């Protein structure tokens, strides 16, 4: 296409500028601006028209794609699944909407770029860089004015005005601080206790299996198993179930008593059945990636790892405390029960948390 009009074009490498400047004398002399090179579309009207057609073609494609978007929205069944090669089985509607909208937006962008590069004015506008500061005259003038202003206001002389001004300026930000109160109210004792607080030695609370909603006997928990429990009386239909279970959730594991390294933790359990809080002490994710051979429980959020055979000691990761353990035993009928709350608050640390 271009060979027939090449005589219209300037030499590709115009030697008039640039090359001869830096060779003599100062090797770092300012080479100045490169010569202005006209684009093909500037000199060749046919090229310009072609570029114009290309740009408008892209805009037209964008319009068609938008029409396609609306058409596919209206016509494609939302449940239709089709096979598209690298993607596999996908929803035809999702695919069509994404494709058409993508093409529509891309063509507008590409058309605009092409337009700017080929047809819009290409005058080069050098913008010189200067130091940011004002020149000396201006600066002196401003400093002078400031001094006069200060002298005329009597700021240095009238101490009362000055001090009250300082005071009022210092107090204004407080209004912002007061607004922070809206983040409250403080949690008070709510974080200290869980639903197990209702358990007492005289009135023990049964552990209820999350799967079956039934209380459990000790022999139901076999070694190597993992069971989740909630306090008796907490029902999934309760209005505040989610808030409650976020603190009350237990995981029950059974470890051969001789494998439990921490004697205190062994005593809190019942014949090797240990009841730990399911809530990570880092930022409170539910943890229960329990490895029954190593007795490690891993938190999926930031990989805190607790050794359940050793009082849920933190052996890796950001958690700051071991998992709280609930003291359990059995009642006369042999069901697992708790006789009190956790010794320490469950979940992440907070300022008022007792050490």
């Amino acid at each position, binding site marked *: 296409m*271009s060979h027939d009009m090449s005589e219209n074009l300037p030499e590709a490498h115009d030697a008039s500028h640039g090359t001869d400047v830096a060779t003599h004398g100062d090797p770092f002399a300012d080479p100045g601006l490169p010569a202005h*090179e006209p*684009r*093909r*579309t500037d000199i060749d009207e046919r*090229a310009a028209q*072609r*570029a114009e057609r290309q740009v408008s073609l892209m805009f037209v494609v964008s319009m068609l794609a938008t029409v396609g978007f609306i058409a596919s929205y209206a016509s494609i069944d939302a449940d239709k*699944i089709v096979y*598209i090669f*690298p*993607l*596999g*089985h*996908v*929803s035809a509607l*999702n*695919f069509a909407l*994404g494709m058409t909208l993508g093409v529509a937006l891309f063509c507008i962008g590409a058309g605009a*770029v*092409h337009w*700017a*590069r*080929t047809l819009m004015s*290409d005058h080069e506008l050098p913008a010189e860089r200067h130091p940011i500061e004002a020149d000396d005259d201006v600066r002196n003038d401003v400093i002078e004015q400031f001094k006069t202003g200060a002298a005329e206001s009597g700021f240095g002389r009238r101490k009362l005005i000055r001090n009250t001004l300082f005071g009022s300026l210092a107090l204004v930000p407080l209004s912002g601080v007061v607004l922070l109160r809206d983040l409250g109210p403080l949690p008070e004792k709510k974080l200290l206790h869980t639903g197990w607080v209702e358990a007492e030695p005289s009135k023990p609370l049964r552990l209820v*299996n*999350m*799967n*079956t909603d039934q209380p*459990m006997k000790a*022999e*139901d*928990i*076999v070694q*190597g*198993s*993992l*069971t*989740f429990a909630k306090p008796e009386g907490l029902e999934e239909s309760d209005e505040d179930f989610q808030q409650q279970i976020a603190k009350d959730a237990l995981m029950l*594991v059974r470890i051969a008593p001789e494998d439990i390294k921490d004697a205190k933790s062994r005593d809190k359990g019942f014949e090797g059945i240990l009841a730990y809080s399911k809530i990570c002490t880092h930022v409170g994710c*539910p*943890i*229960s*990636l*329990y*490895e*029954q*051979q*190593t007795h*490690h429980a*891993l938190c*999926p959020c930031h*990989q805190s*790892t607790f050794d359940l055979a050793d009082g849920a000691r933190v052996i*890796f990761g950001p958690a700051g405390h071991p998992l709280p353990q609930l003291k359990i035993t059995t009642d006369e009928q042999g069901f697992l029960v708790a006789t009190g709350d956790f010794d320490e608050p469950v979940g992440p640390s907070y300022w008022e948390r007792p050490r």
Partner: protein
Amino acid sequence: MKKLSARRRHPLAAVVVLLLALAATGGLYAAFAPAEKAQADSSAQSLAIDEGRKLFAVGCSSCHGLNGQGTSDGPSLVGVGSAAVDFQVGTGRMPAQQPGAQVPRKKVIYTQAETDQLAAFVASLGPGPVTPDSKQYEPSSDPVTNAEQVAKGGELFRTNCAQCHNFNGKGGALTNGKYAPSLEGVDSKHIYEAMQTGPQNMPSFPDTTMPEEQKREIVAFVRSTNDEPNPGGLTLGSLGPVTEGLFGWIFGLGTLILVAIWVAAHTTKAKKS
């Protein structure tokens, strides 16, 4: 009555009484004898145990000991039951390539018949979970009941399984290089057995804490996630934010950077057109 008393003295009376007594004892025994005992005595079963013992000696005894009592290289198999054998051997995990915390799934080298014989032998070492039959694990084929099972199973899965196997069963990482494998394409039977027996580091979910029916519902849910089409296209492993973020940062931002470089390198002026 007269007739009977008249014959009491008959010389054959004692024999008749003895025969009657023997028949009664035999009948009572047949009615009340424990069923497993009777099964264990059946020759087919003891034949399977014998065959299993031979297979065990060749393939398993180097780690688990000749009598399955366990050695320093492998745990004791007394009381693990036939379900555990059927799972471990049936998914190719056993015999293990090398000892270690993670025993990966690989090509199955025993036929189902051989696996059953091995299972029979190990089951004879001590009672344990029994290989389930398809009535226990296959989800209902009735669409309505099935949908119900899937819904309940989904809830149970999110409570009990999702933490390790990911919310749609794609698996995930554990500690020290261990991982929870993907559940994609795993036999219903093997999913059921895994819950029953707790292979390797997976905790077990015995019938006492997760009744049979609930296990079946979980299987139904896993089956349905396996066949679920994926409306959005590229799943990136369905692993959630890790792969999606990585993809976004590398390919999304990478493409934008390349475009930016290309635009900048070509100036605003088109020399050719």
